[in-house]
């Protein structure tokens, strides 16, 4: 078992791959920070960092060195051990997730034939999810251990957000698993050889891309770091190298979700169409380049979103996740599995299936439209009914015993004499209710209200 999952690589090759992934991720982080600043600058008619190194490429390296050399400030109220371990959890988990991402096909490294992937096992994609859920601990613990209000709120917010969006994210994987018949990343890439899953599983792809932005706490879903509300979110009280670790983790997570999107939906390292006409596009070291380009495409989308969209309000954001993304993925999973079953059990052509699908879709749209109109009418009628109900004068003794008014109903005070008169006149109010204590305790405010009126 242990030999299989690392492709029977010798120990020095495993070590080499680990080192390569580590270096690649750190370099990608440095590059992404620079790239983000430059692209956002262009979008805002600025130039961006262009002084340190060619095109300002070394800017983020310099910033990183400066950050590491800064004075570290730890709040007195911090819980030291947890405060220390939180950024470590965040950063290590960010690096760990990359172990199962395939970068390329079989290559020869120092005479050993091996795929460009550190490890692969039957549940690789679940491994990424598991690592992501441990990574959330880093954020929650950072928020809690800082011993301060803003980080606590930021930590709670971001973990609530990441858990909610992880659900939608993992549901978008289900369709891919059904089509690939596997949860191993290399087999999913291999299964996309003729056509990528972003084409045949477009809804899953769209759900994943939305969820991945929420999962990484990036704009427009960057509520955990909403400056106007929470200062810096969970890392408000962190400085120096510990803050740098969180920063690193955030950018690596961006690269990880992009790499996962590439693996699951964009055919991993497989060359895109015009390039795939070239016979050796999918052999040797070239696929690493295609893979990098695809990942950078996603990162550009991240930056583009940040430069374009304003931040969502928290309740809107959560409603979107739970009431739109998750139900949509559930419906889509049912459709995909039904289509799979029909194709496996009966001999339908793709064309027939598509026709039936289109018919069902049209029926669904028309049906939901009609239902929505009926629902709207019913709601309007309900509101009118409620308004009529509220417009009636409120009688606290209508049911035989005193009740407080509903919201929107006005309690008009009637003096005991008037009540007694009413009883004498033979109204429905029973005599013992008139004499009972609550009438004596009628709030003074209503009496004043009557006087004012």
């Amino acid at each position, binding site marked *: 078992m242990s030999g299989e999952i690392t492709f029977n690589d010798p120990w020095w090759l495993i070590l080499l791959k680990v080192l390569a992934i580590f270096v690649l991720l750190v370099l990608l982080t440095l590059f992404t920070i620079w790239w983000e600043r430059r692209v956002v600058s262009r979008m805002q008619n600025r130039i961006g960092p262009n002084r340190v190194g060619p095109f300002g490429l070394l800017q983020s390296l310099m910033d990183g060195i400066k950050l590491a050399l800064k004075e570290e400030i730890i709040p007195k109220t911090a819980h030291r051990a947890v405060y220390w371990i939180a950024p470590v959890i965040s950063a290590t988990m960010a690096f760990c997730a990359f172990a199962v991402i395939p970068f390329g096909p079989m290559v020869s490294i120092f005479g050993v034939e091996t795929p460009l992937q550190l490890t692969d096992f039957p549940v690789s994609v679940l491994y990424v999810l598991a690592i992501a859920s*441990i990574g959330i601990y880093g954020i929650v613990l950072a928020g809690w251990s800082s011993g301060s209000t803003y980080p606590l709120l930021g930590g709670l917010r971001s973990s609530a957000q990441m858990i909610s969006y992880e659900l939608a994210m993992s549901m978008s994987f289900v369709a891919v698993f059904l089509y690939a018949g596997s949860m191993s990343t290399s087999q999913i890439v291999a299964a996309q050889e003729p056509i990528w899953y972003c084409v045949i599983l477009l809804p899953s792809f769209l759900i994943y891309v939305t969820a991945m932005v929420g999962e990484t706490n990036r704009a427009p879903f960057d509520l955990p770091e909403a400056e106007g509300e929470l200062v810096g979110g969970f890392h408000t009280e962190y400085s120096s190298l510990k803050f740098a670790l969180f920063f690193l983790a955030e950018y690596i997570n961006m690269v990880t979700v992009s790499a996962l999107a590439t693996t699951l939906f964009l055919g991993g390292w497989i060359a895109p169409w015009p390039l795939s006409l070239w016979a050796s596009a999918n052999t040797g070291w070239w696929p690493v380049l295609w893979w990098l380009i695809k990942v950078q495409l996603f990162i550009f989308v991240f930056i583009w979103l940040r430069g374009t969209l304003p931040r969502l309000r928290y309740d809107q954001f959560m409603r979107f996740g739970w009431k739109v993304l998750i139900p949509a993925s559930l419906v889509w999973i049912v459709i995909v599995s039904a289509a799979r079953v029909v194709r496996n059990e009966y001999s339908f052509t793709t064309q027939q299936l598509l026709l039936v699908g289109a018919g069902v879709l049209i029926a669904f749209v028309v049906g939901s439209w009609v239902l929505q109109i009926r629902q709207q009418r019913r709601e309007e009628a309900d509101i009118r009914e409620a308004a009529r109900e509220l417009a009636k004068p409120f009688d606290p003794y209508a049911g035989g015993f005193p009740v407080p008014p509903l919201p929107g109903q006005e309690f008009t005070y009637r003096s005991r004499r008037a009540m007694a008169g009413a009883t004498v006149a033979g109204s429905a109010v029973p005599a013992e209710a008139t004499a009972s204590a609550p009438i004596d305790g009628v709030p003074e405010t209503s009496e004043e209200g009557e006087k004012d009126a």
Partner: protein
Amino acid sequence: MSEVEPSTGEAAVFWVCAILSVTGALGLILSRRAVHSALWVALTMISLAVLYIANAAPFLGMVQIIVYTGAVMMLFLFVLMVVGVDSSDSLVETLRGQRIAAILLGVGVGILLIAGVSTSLTGVMSVGLDAANAEHGGNVEGLAWLLFSDYVLAFEVVAALLITAAVGALVLAHRERWTPRKSQRELSEERVRTGTHVTPLPNPGVYARHNAVDTPGLLPDGTLSEITVPAPLRARGDLRPINTAAVEETAALAAGNDVLAPSEYPVADDPGTSPGEPR
């Protein structure tokens, strides 16, 4: 029964994870802070997951981390953090003899478990995992096959139980709205219609020393504007006192009178709370 000697790697994984998981379990019962206990449990769960994976059950290991560490434990942490950040258990015994009873029962359960597991280890013949996995083409496929064929009823019953629990929690936490929620549009229309504050309320006072929310802003005539302080603080009476000399000075300026020269300026009683420093 087939005796298989574990490899060196597997033995190393076992000893590391075994020590970690027992440490986590001990930490759970020995730490006084609830959040620390939750963290120790998370450690135990992750160590167990690694052991599952090392024992050729990768699916179980991953699901253990995703479901227990990622979801269940995280919810626990959530509740602990929301309920009380600094709450720690008191060690005063409220039930007499509870500790002794708990220790006795714990030891009893331990003996039962050890007895049961040791019989199953010595008395039951192991078929081997490879044969079971090969039948349906892999560990995950085999599990899926069992779940959706032999154990489908149990699976569905557990699902129904979980959904019932979730719906029950929703029903218990549900609060009925009597009036429809006002939308952002309706709220803004209402503000315009009443006309008292069409724009947002003014900010708290911003001075050289204080821009805290409990510092009221000053009106042009030097009086305090209470609406600049958030309503909850107002209700508690938490208005930061203002240097009266500064207020008088502002009022004097507003009335067109001369004010004192900086050197004649009276020293404030509480310099820490004085917004009007000598200029």
